Structures are given as C-alpha cells and as structure tokens.
C-alpha cells in the first residue's frame, strides 16, 4: 500500500473506468477489510440470525408432512380402512398453525437481525467514508467528480447493504431449503427425489441466465439514458445558439437518433424481461408435471401413498419458489462486489496531507512566515519554482500577477491546503509539517477566492471561525466586513438560513460573510485570496479601511488588484510563471518601472473607468443580457 500511496487514486480510477469490471481484483478483492471488520463486529447477530433462519426453513417443511398424514387418513377412511374423525383433522390443523407461528417468529427475527445488521453496517460505512472524505486533500478533489463520490456514498453503499443483508439471507435459505428438502423427499421416495433434484439445476441455471442478461442489457439502457441526458443538457444549455442559427430541425434529427437507439437497447432488454416471468411460471408448472407423470404412476402402483404425492408437490413448490430468487441473488452479488470495490477505492486513498506522527504542540503563533526554496508541481507542470520569501510577523505582503502565475497556490501553502514538492514553509521558524493540522489551521484566517457558505444560518456560517465567540465579537466581524448593513434586508438578520432552501446571497454578500468568518477567528495570520472581487468599489474601499485596523499586528498575505491595497502593503511580491519576478516596497517597484509599474498603471486606469461608469448609476442587468 505504501508504495502506491501517491498515485492510488489515479490507479483505482482507471480500474473503475474499465467497463466490464474484469480488472477487478488488483485493488479489490483483498481489501474488503473494513467491511469484514464490521461483519465480525456483528457476528453474533449474523450467527443467531442464521440459526433462526435454518430452524424456520426446516419448520416450513413440516406442514406438507402433516398434510400428507391428513390426506392419507382421509383417503383410507373414505375407502373404509381408516377411522379418522373431524377432531383428528382439527388437531392436524392445530399442528400446522402452531408450526407456522414458531416459523413466523423465527423468520421475522432472522430477517430483522441480519438485514438490520446490514443496515447498521451501511450506516457505519457511510460515516467512515464521510470522515475519510473530510481528511482528503485538494489533490484528490481536483481529480474526483462530486457526483461520482456522492454515488459511492449512496448507491454503492445500498448495493453493499443488499449484498450483505437480503442476499446473504437468500443464499443461506436456498442452501438450507435444498438440504432439508432433499432429506424430507428422500424419506418418501429415492427415485422421485433424484428426478426432482435433477430438475432443479435447470431452474437455477435458467434464472441465472435471465438475471445476468437482464443486468447486462439494463446497464446498456442506463448508458444510453446517460447519453440522452448529456444530449438534452447540451441542447438546452445551447438553446440560444441553436435558435440563432435556426438549427432546431438538425437538433431534433440528432436527438431522434439517440432516442431510437434508446428504444433499440430497451427492446433488447425487453426480450429478456418479457421472458423472465413466463419462464418462471413454466418452470414451476414443469415441476408439477414431472411429479404428476412419475409420482402418479407410483401412487397407482402403490410405491407411495396419495398423501406422499401431495407432500411431494408441496415441498417441490417450496423449493421452486425459493430457487426463483437465485437469479436475483447472483445479480445482487455481482453488483455488491463492484460496489465494495468502489467504496474501498475511496477508503484506501491515503490523505496526502496529514498530521505528523509526533506533532509539536503550538499555542498562538507570532506569525513569522517563511517560504524556503519552495517548488510546487501539479503532475509534471511546475506551478511555483524556487520561491524564497520571508515575511516578518505583523507585516502585510501583497501578491500580484496575472491569472495562472501561482498566486493562489502560494496562498494555499500557508494553511497546508497544498504541500510543497520541494523546500519547506516555516511558521515562527518551524516547518509547518511538524505541527498538527488543527493547530496550524487555527493560526490562519483564510478567505478563499470562491467563497463557500453552508446551508445553515448566517450566524452558524460565521461561527466556523470560532464557535465560542460572544455577541461583541460577531458585531465586530460583521461591521468590519460591512455585512451589518445587509442584515436588515435578510429576513431573519443573522439567523437567516442561507443556500438552496434559504435566502440566496449575492456574490458580494457571500464574500463579505467569508471575510467575517475569517475575522471572527481572530487569527495571527490572515490570507485574503482575491477576497473582494464581487464587492462593489465603494464597499470594497470601506472594508479595506476597516480591515487595515484589524491587520495591525497580524501577518497578512493578500492577493489583490486594487491600487489602494497595493499602496498600503508593506511589501509587494510579483509572480510570473511561478517565480518571484519582482519584490519590494510599492514606491521602490514603481520607480523601477518593471512589471509591477505596468500592472499598477493598468489597474489605476481601470479603476478610473469603473468610477465613471458607476457614477452613471448603472441600471440592473436583466436576465436576458447575461
């Protein structure tokens, strides 16, 4: 495992992509450890459930036996050689009902305990998976797709649950029914038993044939459905272009082709789907036919009694009903194995950024940050190369550069969202990799480029910074981030619930909430990654003015464009192609007339233009203009 630590996710991803799943096994089969562990944890439930199951299944074969005695008694009495009375028949009935009651209780118990354990294991596994996801680094998330991960935590887990629950119950029951049924039938007649059991494989194989084929065709249909979804998505999102070129008919023609293909595949599935039930019915009846043909003569010839005949037919029908589910079990087991593999892929992906084995404790840091010969690569592409930068405690450093020069990566290094491939980042002179992640991240107030808020109340979102903050602290954070002015507009002020089912905040409001969140944390280090891009100029100035007080005595790393921020920074670092191109105080660099002075002037001109435009009181942009 250690050797493939780095590329684990990539490797398994390719495994998962193999359509037929035949490459299964390298990562898969051997690694079901965690699921095994839970199965062992629940072993008593499984064992007791199994015993209940065995007993219930054997009990189910008793009523046919009682029926046999009843039928034989009746037949003999009718012929005049017996003397059965109604009360004897009633006592037969009583035995049947009594057996059925015990069987019912045991059946109920076994299903609840086994499938219940499976559902508990599903719960634990989901918890484990979610915890594991929270520990994985950005490197993992760049490659993983959200939808796929979600599907592993829901659909795949359900497949596993079905496999270790109902499937296990069904497999065990089938086995017990076969063995017990064999024994019961053997007691009646050897020849008939052998004939019946020669017939059973036909039933099992036919069912397995249908189920596996249905599974395969069903998968094809699902693929085409995905294709149709893709096409619809593409079409609807491009509807303006389609209309602009009057290509509606061409689109309809393309869609019709995909739709026809869908029907073709569905019809292939239909052949098997339509065959399944008739075959099941025919097979069950076929068993009765065999019995009638061979058993009927045996009764006449006196080899067996009429009661034996009835018992046999009842036992046969119990066997057949049970074995009908074999096909389903096979399909469910196949899906279960694939799902276990997909779940293990996630669980076995190690967190590339993790706590050190023996972390050195850290209280509140002073805030001295140093990048020493830092190189970061994404795959083969270098993003940052040989960065050397020491930031004194309390200093403000602005990072400048065009898109794609490595600014965000530099910022991400500080709270270890990214680790350097070479070199080290030091905090107060210590390699940050020697500090626990929790301790390190406690030091950093981070405002990312894309502000993300959870569907919780605004207050809860801000409380991410510090859960034990008092009202004054909230007030301060809200005022500094200029969010306090907006509170009135929101229905419930700070308790307004945000997100899909709540109030939607504007981009600027979201960014300001993200700033408030970082401020509430009261950290010695502040990292602002283009944190005000969606805020209007006026508010931006206002926030920056207030932030300056806050930044006093804190080390601040700010990625920004606004000239006022640049002017206020103690030092400017210009990144170009992942290297430090220029570095120094604002005036110094401006005098030098290099990259920085050009960027600064462009920005200045842009700001003037914006002011002009905003002075004109711009009307709101209507939907259709976007």
């Amino acid at each position, binding site marked *: 495992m250690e050797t493939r630590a780095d590329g684990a996710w990539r490797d398994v991803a390719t495994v998962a992509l193999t359509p037929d799943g035949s490459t299964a096994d390298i990562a898969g089969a051997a690694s079901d450890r965690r699921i095994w562990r839970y199965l062992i944890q629940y072993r008593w439930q499984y064992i007791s459930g199994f015993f209940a199951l065995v007993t219930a299944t054997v009990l*189910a074969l008793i*009523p046919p036996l009682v029926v046999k005695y009843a*039928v034989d008694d*009746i037949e003999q009495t009718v012929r005049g050689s017996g003397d*059965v009375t*109604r009360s004897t028949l009633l006592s*037969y009935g*009583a035995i*049947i009902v009594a057996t059925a*009651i015990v069987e*019912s209780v045991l*059946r*109920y118990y076994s299903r609840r305990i086994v*499938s219940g354990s499976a559902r508990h294991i599903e*719960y634990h596994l*989901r*918890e484990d998976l979610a915890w594991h996801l*929270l520990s994985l680094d950005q490197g993992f998330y760049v490659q993983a797709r959200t939808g796929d991960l979600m599907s592993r*935590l829901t659909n795949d887990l359900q497949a596993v649950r079905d496999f270790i629950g109902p499937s296990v119950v069904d497999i065990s029951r089938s086995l017990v029914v076969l063995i017990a049924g064999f024994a019961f039938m053997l007691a009646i007649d050897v020849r008939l038993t052998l004939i019946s059991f020669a017939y059973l494989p036909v039933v099992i194989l036919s069912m397995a044939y249908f189920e596996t084929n249905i599974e395969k065709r069903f998968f094809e249909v699902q693929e085409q459905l995905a294709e*149709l*979804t893709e096409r*619809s*998505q593409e*079409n609807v999102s*491009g509807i303006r272009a389609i*209309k*602009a070129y009057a*290509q*509606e008919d*061409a689109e309809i023609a393309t869609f*019709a082709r995909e739709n026809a293909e869908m*029907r073709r595949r*569905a019809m292939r599935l239909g052949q098997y789907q*339509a065959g399944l039930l*008739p075959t099941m*019915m025919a097979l069950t*009846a076929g068993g009765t*036919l065999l019995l*009638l*043909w061979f058993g009927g*003569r045996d009764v006449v010839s006196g080899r067996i009694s*009429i009661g034996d005949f*009835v018992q046999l037919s009842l036992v046969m029908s119990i066997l057949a009903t049970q074995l009908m589910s074999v096909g389903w079990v096979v399909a469910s087991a196949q899906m279960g194995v694939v799902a276990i593999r997909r779940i293990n892929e996630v669980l076995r992906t190690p967190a590339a950024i993790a706590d050190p084995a023996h972390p050195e404790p850290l209280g509140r840091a002073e805030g001295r940050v140093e990048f020493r010969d830092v190189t970061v690569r994404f795959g083969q592409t270098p993003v940052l190369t040989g960065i050397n930068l020491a930031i004194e405690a309390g200093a403000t450093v602005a990072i400048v550069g065009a*898109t794609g020069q490595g600014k965000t990566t530099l910022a991400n290094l500080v709270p270890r*969202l990214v680790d350097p491939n070479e070199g080290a980042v030091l905090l107060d002179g210590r390699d940050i990799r020697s500090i626990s*992640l*929790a301790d390190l991240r*406690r030091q950093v107030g*981070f405002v990312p480029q894309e502000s*993300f808020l*959870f569907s919780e109340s605004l207050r809860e979102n801000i409380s991410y910074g510090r*859960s034990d903050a008092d009202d004054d602290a909230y007030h301060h954070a809200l005022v500094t981030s200029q969010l306090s002015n907006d509170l009135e507009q929101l229905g419930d002020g700070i308790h307004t619930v945000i*997100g*899909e089912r709540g109030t939607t905040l504007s981009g600027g409001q979201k960014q300001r909430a993200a700033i408030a969140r970082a401020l509430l944390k009261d950290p010695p280090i502040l990292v602002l990654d283009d944190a005000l891009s969606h805020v209007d100029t006026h508010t931006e100035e206002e926030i920056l003015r207030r932030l300056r007080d806050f930044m006093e005595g804190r080390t601040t790393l700010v990625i920004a464009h606004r000239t006022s921020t640049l002017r206020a920074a103690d030092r400017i670092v210009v990144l170009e192609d992942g290297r430090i191109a220029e570095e120094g105080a604002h005036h110094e660099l401006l005098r030098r007339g290099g990259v920085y002075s050009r960027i600064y002037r462009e920005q200045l*001109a842009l700001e003037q233009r914006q002011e*002009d435009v905003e002075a*004109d009181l711009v*009307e709101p942009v*209507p939907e*259709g203009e976007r």
Partner: protein
Amino acid sequence: MSFYEEEELIGKVYDRRIAGRLLSYLRPYRTQVVISVLLMLVVAGLELVPTLLVKYAIDEQITPGRTDQLGKVALLFLGTLLLGFMMRFVQMYLTWWVGQRFMVDLRMQLFSHIQHLSVSYFDRNPVGRLVTRLTGDIQQIEMVISQGIIQILTNLLMVTAIVVALYVLNWWLALIMTVFVVPLIFLVRLFAAAQRQAFRDQRMWMARINAYLNELITGVAIIQLFNRQRRNMEYFDQRNSGALEANLRVLFWYAVFEPTVVLFNAVTITAIIWVGGGASLDGAVSIGTLVAFISFMQRFFWPIRELSERYTMIQGAMASAERIFGVLDAPEEVVDSEGARPLAGVRGDIRFDHVWFAYEPENWVLKDVDFTIPAGQKVAIVGATGAGKSTTMALLSRFYDVQRGAILVDGEPIRDLPQRWLRRHVGVMLQDPWIVSDSVEENIRLRDTSISDEQVRAAAEAVGASKFIERLPDGYRTVLAERGANLSTGQKQLIALARVAAFNPEIVLVMDEATASIDPETEETIQSGLDRVMAGRTALIIAHRLNTIRAVDRIIVLHLGEVVEDGSHDELIAQGGIYARLYELQYQVQAGV
C-alpha cells in the same frame, strides 16, 4: 442532477384529465394494446388449467388406481404449459414494445416542443429542470406503461380467475375461504400504507444525505481550514441516523410481511383440511378438490401484495406526467404571424423604428431606440454594462418581440417574417461559443446537413481557423470535449467565426466583449478573421477591441437604453462625449500606459 431538485414526488393516484391525455398517446398502437389485453385474459384462464388437471388426475385416475388417461393428462398439461409460456411471452413483449414506442413518441414531442419555445422560457427555467423532464420523468411513465399496468391487470385477472375456479370447484368451501381472504385484503392494504410512508421517509432522508454530501464535498477546504470536521460530521450524522431509522422502519414492514404470508397459508390449509377434509369423509368433497384448494390458496397472496406495491409507482408517474404536460402546454411566445413569407433575397438594410422593449412590464431596457443601418455598413454598439447592447442584438434575431415600434430588415418588419428564416440570414457570433461534444466539422455547421464538408473547410480557411484545426489529431473529424474543454478560449472563438462564415448570412451580429487572456498570436488571427467575416455584410458589433472599433464605419453609443451618440469614430472623438471618454480609458488600459 435531480438530487437537489427535491420536487414534489407524490401525485394523485388517478387524475382523469392526465390519465386520459396519457392514454391518447396509445391510440396509434391500439391494435397492439387490444391484442395484449386479449392475450392477458387467455393467459389468466390457462393459469388455472394445470391445477385443475392435477385435480382431475387425482380424482379420476390416481385414487381409483387407473393410469389409462394419465398420459393424456400429462400431454394436455405440457401443451397448456407451452402455450401459456408463449402467449405470456408475446403478451409481455408486446406491452414492452408499446411502452417503448410511447416513450419515444412522448420524448420526441417534448424535445421538439422545447426546441420551439421562445428564449424567454429558458430565461425562466433552469436547464436541469428541462433535462429531468426529458429523461427521469419520461422514464417514470414508461415504467408504468410497460410494467405497472400489465402487472396490475394480470394480478387482478389472476385473483378473479382463482376466485371463479374456487367457486366452481366447491362453492361453500370457497365461501369459507372468503372469510379469510377479506380480512387479509384489509391487512395487506394497511401494511402497504405503512410501508409507503416508510419508503417516502427513506427517500426523503436519502435526498437530504445527498444534499448535505454535496455541501461537504464542495466545501471540504473550508471545513478543513476552520477545523470544523467534528461539527459538520454531527450534522451529517443527523441525516445518516435519520436514514438508518427510516431504513429500519422499511425493514420492519418487510420482515412483518413474510410471517403474514406464512400464517395466512397455515390458516387456510388448516381450514381446508378441517372443513374440507371433514366434508370429504362424507364423500362431499374429493381429495383432488382439497389439493386444488391448497394449491390455489397458496397463489392468492402475492397478486394482492403486488397490487398495493404498484400504487407508489403510479403516483410517481402521474406526478411526472403532470410536469411533462406543464412543459408541453407552455406557449411559444414568439410566433410566426399568419401569412409570414420569406423575402426573395436579403440586402441587409436594418431599421430600428422607435423601439421600446422591456423584459418585465414597464422596466424599459430600450427606450425609443431609432436608427437606420444601410446594407453593408459596419456599426459598433458601445455602452456600459446594462446599457442595452446585447438586448439590441437579441431583438434583431427576434428572440423577443418588441413592445412598441418595430424592427425592419430591408423595409419589412421582422414580425412579419418567418423567424427561423430570419435567423438564417442574421448570423450571430456569441460571446461564449456553444461547443458540443461532436466533431469540429459538426461544430462548425451545427449538424446542418445542407452545409457540405467543402463549405465547412472553406469557411474555416477564410477565417484562419484551419491552421489550428488541421493540427488536431483527427483534423476536422476530431471530437471535441463537452463545452469545448479541450480548446482554448481563442480556439473556441475561431470555431465560432468559422461557423458564421459557413452559414454565410447577410447580416452579422458579433458579441465581442472583453474576455480572459488570449495569447497575442491567436488574438491577431481572430482579429483578421473577424474582418473577413464582416466584409461585404451588414455588421453590428459589440466590441471591446480598439482595432475593431476603429475599423467600423459608425458607432452608436447606448446609455441606459437610449441612443445618445451616433457617428463615425472621428466625429464622436471630436464631440468629446461619452464615447470619447470611454475610448480614452480603454486605450490607456489596452496600450498599457
């Protein structure tokens, strides 16, 4: 994507209006439907034959100790079996076939309707919703047609056939069975209702888990940065526990169901043996009848259970149908007027005749816009965001109808022209070109079969796109990724240019606002491509490139929906108004002063 779309899943079980409308889609296939129903009736009858044959064999052959007819009985049995198998297969296949046809028809109708809806409909409805209509909702209905209805009818027929057979065999024994069956039906319905509720809760909790997972995964960096793993996992656990609880409830109803079957069977067998057996002692009931009763009663339970399970399925389908019809009933807002006839040819004169336009009533986006552009002239539209530039373009394509005034092409109001004909003559180069996951070729001609391969290549050649296309692994046949993910911004724009050239319109509209960085070389290619596309055509450009603006004949400045300046570059600079100021600022930025 339907994960987050927690739409109301539960519909009415039966709504005559919706059901009637759904059934109307079966009309073309009524022969198949009728055959299928007839087959179903026959199959239900055949279903009874084996049991009755066994009864006959026991009573007439085995018990009296004869075997002379046994061969005939077995042969008849085999015959019924094979016939039943075939008819059942044909019947099921036929229904499946009808279901698929139905689905294809409905989906095509829906898709075509969506193609013809006006742009304003798409302003209001998110993409995901329409995609769900086309896929998930249709699938839901298809399932009911090809599986649900059949199952229901088959089960109903089965139950009926068994009841008839029981009464014919022995009416008073059958009557006694009824005493057991009626409470059973109530019990099953009770269970089914409880189970449905449990299922609904289960689905709801899974939807919540999904929604929260989505948040956890998207916001994972924030959770890590703020050391909030424990708190967020508490929230997750609430949902996970909720799901577990609902799951266990579903399981409880499953677990209860099985014992119910066992007990029901035991009680009926007891009754048959005690009452029926007792009667047979007097010779009133034959042994064969007893066996037949036991065998029929064992098959009674499942159809009843299945019937109640289909309930949920139908509910879901009704809700889906209602949503689909909702889309189908949405009117096309921009429609061709009666007697709309294309012009013989297009010169390219454009006239905005005192145009007023608003997306929402009274919120005017364009106010009394009035200008004339003679054929062949190139005009830049300039103004701040929200000035109404893109609206002007959208109106010229007739994506929306103006409220007051008129837009005329070659002196003809575009309201009186067929809209799709109009759009073939007004080419638009969109800001963010639409790229589909298909070959470069098809991306240029947008799958329009009237444009030949040669025309595609000539167009790409003309705008300078051929150079990069020919370097692609399969040239023009290279399949592009979704949304053109494997192309640079510049390359996407070159494809959009080639597209305009391939469609060869008389009027071109170019949306060319500031975009992310494009390398200087590509920039140059795009620039000259643009020039070539505009040459010899009437062109309206929303431009940010100074070179483009300087190359046009005329500039119209829009401000808050009104034309405030109109003239050539030099004139407007001399005028010293808004344009002059904008130009100066832009020039500073782009020249990097």
